[in-house]
């Protein structure tokens, strides 16, 4: 079957899968960013317990496989009485995983802000929380945006794993179509192109725009 005939016939399912993939991506991104911020800040805490909690989190979620984490959340937690619906389990796992990587970016971004900025903020008598929120984080954010672009693309591709717990994302639909039609080249070819288009023409331009926007806010442009 020619590729365009194939698309003509199966585009509704591919489109619906793409929608789910995007939803998984956005939800996991929001969760991942929140976790990154929390864990990144906690890792810089003076309190050893708080720091220890962040280190443990990062070690566990960065040091083990995302698929295994996904299976834990979806198949193992119910054994302890905590059942999570598959769609939720999907973005939870991906978001928590990416949060562990993001935490290191947040920490690095904060440490990259020159010491003089902390001192100037202290010299006008800002509280530690004000210093972080008003002075340090806005600058740290700009410094860490380029690596965040990479992480967001990793995140998008990582969402394909949620198909393993039957979330009907793009990869899941592709596998289903393949199983009934054996049109492997067409269906996985289409999936490949769609993931590439999402990464290249949505995620990357958005991150570029954000970098540019933030640089302008800093008066760097």
């Amino acid at each position, binding site marked *: 079957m020619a590729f365009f005939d194939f698309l003509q016939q199966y585009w509704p399912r591919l489109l619906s899968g793409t929608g789910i993939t995007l939803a998984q991506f956005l939800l996991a991104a929001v969760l991942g960013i929140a976790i990154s911020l929390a864990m990144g800040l906690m890792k810089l805490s003076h309190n050893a317990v708080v720091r220890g909690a962040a280190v443990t989190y990062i070690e566990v979620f960065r040091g083990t496989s995302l698929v295994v984490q996904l299976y834990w959340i979806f198949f193992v937690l119910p054994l302890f009485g905590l059942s999570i619906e598959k769609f939720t389990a999907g973005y939870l796992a991906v978001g928590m995983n990416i949060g562990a990587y993001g935490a290191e970016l947040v920490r690095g971004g904060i440490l990259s802000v020159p010491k003089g900025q902390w*001192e100037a903020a202290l*010299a*006008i008598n*800002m509280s530690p929380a004000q210093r972080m929120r008003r002075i340090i984080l806005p600058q740290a954010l700009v410094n860490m945006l380029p690596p965040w672009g990479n992480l967001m693309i990793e995140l998008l591709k990582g969402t394909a794993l949620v198909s393993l717990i039957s979330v009907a994302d793009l990869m899941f639909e592709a596998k289903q179509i393949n199983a009934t039609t054996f049109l492997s080249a067409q269906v996985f070819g289409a999936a490949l192109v769609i993931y590439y288009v999402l990464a290249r023409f949505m995620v990357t331009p958005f991150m570029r725009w954000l970098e540019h926007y933030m640089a302008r806010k800093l008066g*760097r442009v």
Partner: protein
Amino acid sequence: MHDVSAFPLQIAGDPAPMVSFRKVTKSYGALTVLDELDLDVKAGEMVSIIGPSGSGKTTVLRMLMTLEEINGGVIYVDGQPLTHMQKNGTLVPASQKHLRNRRADIGMCFQHFNLFPHMTALENCMEGPVQVLGLPKKEARERSEELLEMVGMIGKKDQHPSRLSGGQQQRVAIARALAMRPKVMLFDEVTSALDPEVIGEVTNVIRKLVSEHNLTMLMVTHQMGFARDISDRICFFYGGKIEEQGPPAELFGNPKKERTQQFLSAVKEAV
């Protein structure tokens, strides 16, 4: 923590010195940067600190700004302890809350300006008054614009620091510090990072402050001529101690200690 039981709970006197270092020691490991420093600065006095690098000049200002903890002695500001606080009739090391309370009296300008790059000149000046003092935005803006006018930067109030020259950034930094209405202003080598041709615009602002305001000022500088012109007193630091101090005419014109003479003649040769 060092024993401070022998130190007074507050400094009396009429008027009490605005700043008072009593046997203040600062060391980094085995290296002693300041060695039992005693220094009183009167309200409204302008004191310049000079000396070779590594003599502890900048550390004096940084301790007063509470950027560095001290290892011995007590610092008082306006008669009240800064580095310590009263508890059950004795002095104990200051809590963060106490530091925050007392720090409000002190403002500082840095060698590298340290303006907030994500804010315009005006926003830099308004940040403290709005966030820390809780002033309404309108009032903070008026106060900031007045100060930017005073330092000659009102025309660039909406520019980000990256668009300003070093001299301009430093003038904004002075306005930012003044916007907090400190009683004591600290200038830490504020002209050292500037191109020679813009040093004057910053020193002129400081001159204006000296002549028109009754601020207590401590300045670390390498500009001997400037220090001589505007200071009430010069302190020559050497090896973590005040080697010699006195009115500028005396210290520059007739230095008594050999180290002072050596330093001043070395500086003269360099010019």
